[in-house]
């Protein structure tokens, strides 16, 4: 299904430098999307050159050699600013690479830049970062423009653009607008899958412990995983293969060796058992998505798979528990930002304490400060048992729900990823970040609570011409099975290619060449 960029590089049809230059010029012409915070043009071209030299010698490092990638701006990158879209880290240049970044570079990938996000990955819209909101490339697609009827002609298209979802919205937009072939996101409660769904790309949240978190600036250590955003499931498998495995710098990674895999083409799904968790009929689920979900279930059924309704009874408690655990860890993780060792430091110097207070007030936005406040409340001695400990117990129950369902013979769970398609920015910001996060993480965060692998597969366009995705949740460390099923599904649904009018207008030639390009 995918164009073999890697083969093209190998065969010399295109050089890494050409590829890199095309991406860089696309980044420029799609600057209005605000997908990137930092574009590392110089170092990217240098990396491309080195890659080119390897191809010339006939010794590329592997499938990823010369492939342009982007990385969410909450992964440390040596020599390139890492901001977390926060005033706190504006201008911060890390002295080291996150393990996942290092692994990509070691395999010859070309790092184009750092992508936009909600401040410290706290959000579900990619609208709450200090560098401004990310715009969904689909806002500028022919598909959306044809179907969305402007409320009035006086309203310019400026107010019609839709959000990417978040918090890895920059990475999703970057992949969706062809400015890179793969991007790293992070996924704590759905931050990779949610924007992937809204931007019509594949978003994989691997099993907790499969990929190193070293160098990922944490949101919630016990749930964070580096996420993978690509244009097709095969690509996600390739990137996963290059990142997975034990890292001595992250004690929560598994010790067992991880063997990269190629995905087989499933021809027979009759041995598969697909579970449809009834609790995912969440309040607010759009009828459109509900219909799509049923259609997908039918697709499996019609192909001979066993499709059964299952119950994950504690699901409805999941989001509140997620919030308690999330804010508690946020309060703890953010304690290090005091302006002493790095990052923003306030001019206030009356005392160390007043300097801390001013630094943190100036450095963090309302969302971050709000979560720190509630997290500290939950961790107070008098509240710890009532909130944190209880939430942890419920978390165990939620994880056990999954264990039971998978133990009963279900291979994969099929659910919606989001409640609806992407909202226009003007609509989205009518509610505050907390409300939005509670709504938008509802279908995704349970997989984080249980540590399970889950993937968003773009499925169809909504009535408004916007992408809608479905989520597959697999067994712990059974990524191969999960991705194999996802690949089969991807093949069946034939999700349409984005037709980027705006990009065409801006950079016609490059877009034509990049169209449908994938690397594996």
């Amino acid at each position: 299904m995918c164009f073999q960029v890697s083969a093209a590089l190998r065969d010399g049809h295109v050089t890494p430098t050409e590829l890199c230059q095309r991406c860089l010029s696309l980044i420029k012409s799609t600057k209005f999307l605000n997908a990137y915070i930092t574009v590392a043009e110089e170092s990217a071209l240098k990396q491309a050159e080195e890659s080119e030299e390897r191809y010339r010698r006939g010794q590329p490092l592997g499938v990823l050699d010369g492939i342009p990638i982007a990385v969410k701006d909450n992964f440390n990158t040596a020599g390139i600013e890492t901001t977390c879209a926060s005033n706190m880290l504006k201008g911060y240049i890390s002295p080291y690479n996150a393990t996942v970044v290092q692994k990509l570079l070691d395999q010859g990938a070309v790092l184009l830049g750092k992508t936009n996000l909600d401040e410290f990955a706290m959000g579900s819209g990619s609208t709450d970062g200090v560098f401004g909101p990310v715009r969904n490339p689909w806002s500028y697609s022919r598909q959306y423009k044809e179907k969305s009827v402007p409320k009035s002609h006086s309203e310019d298209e400026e107010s019609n653009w839709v959000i990417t979802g978040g918090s890895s919205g920059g990475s999703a937009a970057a992949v969706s607008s062809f400015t890179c072939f793969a991007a790293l996101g992070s996924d704590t409660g759905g931050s990779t899958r949610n924007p992937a769904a809204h931007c019509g790309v594949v978003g994989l949240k691997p099993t907790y412990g499969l990929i190193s978190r070293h160098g990922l600036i944490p949101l919630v250590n016990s749930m964070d995983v580096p996420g993978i955003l690509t244009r097709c499931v095969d690509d996600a498998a390739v990137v996963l293969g290059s990142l997975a495995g034990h890292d001595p710098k992250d004690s929560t990674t598994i010790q067992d060796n991880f063997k990269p895999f190629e995905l087989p083409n499933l021809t027979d799904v009759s041995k598969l058992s697909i579970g449809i968790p009834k609790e995912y009929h969440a309040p607010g689920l759009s009828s459109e998505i509900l219909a799509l979900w049923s259609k997908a279930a039918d697709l499996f059924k019609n192909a001979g798979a066993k499709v059964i309704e299952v119950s994950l009874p504690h699901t409805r408690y999941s989001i509140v528990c997620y919030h308690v655990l999330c804010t508690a860890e946020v309060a703890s993780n953010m304690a290090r930002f005091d302006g002493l060792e790095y990052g923003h430091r306030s001019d206030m110097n009356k005392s160390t304490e007043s300097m801390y207070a001013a630094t943190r007030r100036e450095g963090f936005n309302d969302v971050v400060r709000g979560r720190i406040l509630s997290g500290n409340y939950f961790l107070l001695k008098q509240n710890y048992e009532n909130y944190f400990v209880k939430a942890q117990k419920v978390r165990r129950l939620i994880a056990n729900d999954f264990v039971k369902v998978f133990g009963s013979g279900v291979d994969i769970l099929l659910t919606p990823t989001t409640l609806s398609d992407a909202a226009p920015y003007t609509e989205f910001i009518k509610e505050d970040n907390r409300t939005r996060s509670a709504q938008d993480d509802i279908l995704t965060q349970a997989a984080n609570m249980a540590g399970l692998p889950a993937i968003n597969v773009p499925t169809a366009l909504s009535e408004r011409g916007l992408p809608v995705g479905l989520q597959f949740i697999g067994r712990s460390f059974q990524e191969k099975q999960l991705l194999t099923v996802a690949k089969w599904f991807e093949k069946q649904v034939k999700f349409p290619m984005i037709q980027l009018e705006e990009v065409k207008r801006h950079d016609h030639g490059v877009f034509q060449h990049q169209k449908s390009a994938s690397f594996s």
Partner: protein
Amino acid sequence: MAAVVVRGCGGVWRRTWQRGARGPGPAPRGQHAVACNARGGAVPAGKSGPAPWVPVVGLEIHAQISSNSKLFSGSQVQFAAPPNSLVSFFDASLPGTLPVLNRRCVEAAVMTGLALNCSINKKSLFDRKHYFYADLPAGYQITQQRVPIAVNGSLSYSLCIDNKMNQMVTKTVRIKQIQLEQDSGKSLHDDTRSQTLIDLNRAGVGLMEVVMEPDMCCGEEAAAAVRELQLILQTLGSSQAVMAEGQLRVDANVSVHHPGEPYGVRTEVKNINSIRFLAKAVDYEIQRQIEELENGGTILNETRAFDSKLGCTVPMRDKEGKQDYRFMPEPNLPPLILYDAKSLPANMNHQQVVNIDWIHERLPDLPSVKRAKLVEQYGILPEHSFTLLSWLVFLCNYATHCTSPVHAGIGFLLEKNEDGLAEFFENVVKQTQMKPKKVIGWIINDLLSHLKQHSLTVKESPVSSFLLADLLNLLVKKDISSTAAKQVLAELWKGEGKTPLEIVKKKKLGLIQDQKELEQICQAVIDRQENEVMAIKSGNQKVLNKLIGLVQRETQGRSNAVVVRQILEKKLSE
């Protein structure tokens, strides 16, 4: 409640208790309440107090783990390195860094736990303890609050009563737990420029926090317990435990109450940087609390610092007001799992597991065992084994030597580095024919007192074990008298590189071997001392010693007293 007091301070405490415990109510009218120190000097606690006071002392000891690298990072551990030269990204809490547990630190904690008779938890957990402080870069310390690595141990220590080495008592303090945790950095406050400078070299160094139950009742007990712990740590090598370098830090929790009543409000005394100061600080604090309460005051639950110059404790300004540490499990570290021979999985990489049994089998002899072996092997007195293997010497009773009203009744301790004294003794014993029982006298009375006078450590001694053995051999062979031996030793201290034999020859200190010459000298003494000879002949044999002494003086100590006695007896019976 009685058990609490019995665990307290020696005999006098018990007597005090019995006096006060006639009824649950106040002591009989007119009876003065008393507080006592370990030596039994009862101290009136006040003029109208209803009952005696029972001090309760518990200790929290932070021992820096002796390890090449820090607890969770690869940075080197080194005392007095240039500021901020030993700081990894993790130590500086750079965002995205994660802790990786140092196996050596785990082993050191297991070793220490076993040596302190603890049960080792096969599964322990790490927690975050939050507070904002400039030398705590992450805003939290990783510690073991919920399930520490070792629990429920005990430590036996000995101290002497009334300052008499032959009245040693052995006591036991329960060890509540040992937890692994990170050290903080150091803040240097520059008040003139109103700046605080931060050195993160120490940030993240592995600590073992040893929590002792409040089983002690005075400074001397606390000091003796800490000294024994220090010796154990040094024997194990799990910590260098040098207090002056901050490798062993002691906080004391002190309270006082009346017998039969609940414990009083306690204060925590910090900033104690020597064992001697520990005893002083605790005793001061006990006295202060008693006086405060006797005067109708109350004790605040506060942190106080010991001011070694003033010899008193002063309130410390708290770091962040009332602290709520907001403990939380450390999510980046899985539970610490330890194995024993039974639970060790067969296919496990041995580099990745810590085997408790393996460590147990390799524990060195602890100080108490070493002392018992010294007593058994060499026939020396138990108290001498303590002199050889302990570095606390209770020199004098402060109350009798010091006029300071603040410190009346507080024991005075002399600290001296006698590290290696036992080895020195054993080396001398190996190289001489002299009986160990006699050697110990030379070690304690001559070597040790000389070292003390000149503030030298055993390792700095100008007289090596070889030279001392050489000298003692001359004595054994009766080549010299013991008086002469002392003279030779006095020469040896000068460290001029001469052998004992050379000194004997040069100074003509060898015994007079010529029987006739000795007989002539004896005869001369007899001839001069008519009265004494008369006395001896009339039956007063004690006077013979005087004659022997005179012969010794005549020969300048170069005569063998036994031979001289024989000659004199023979001549006087003629």
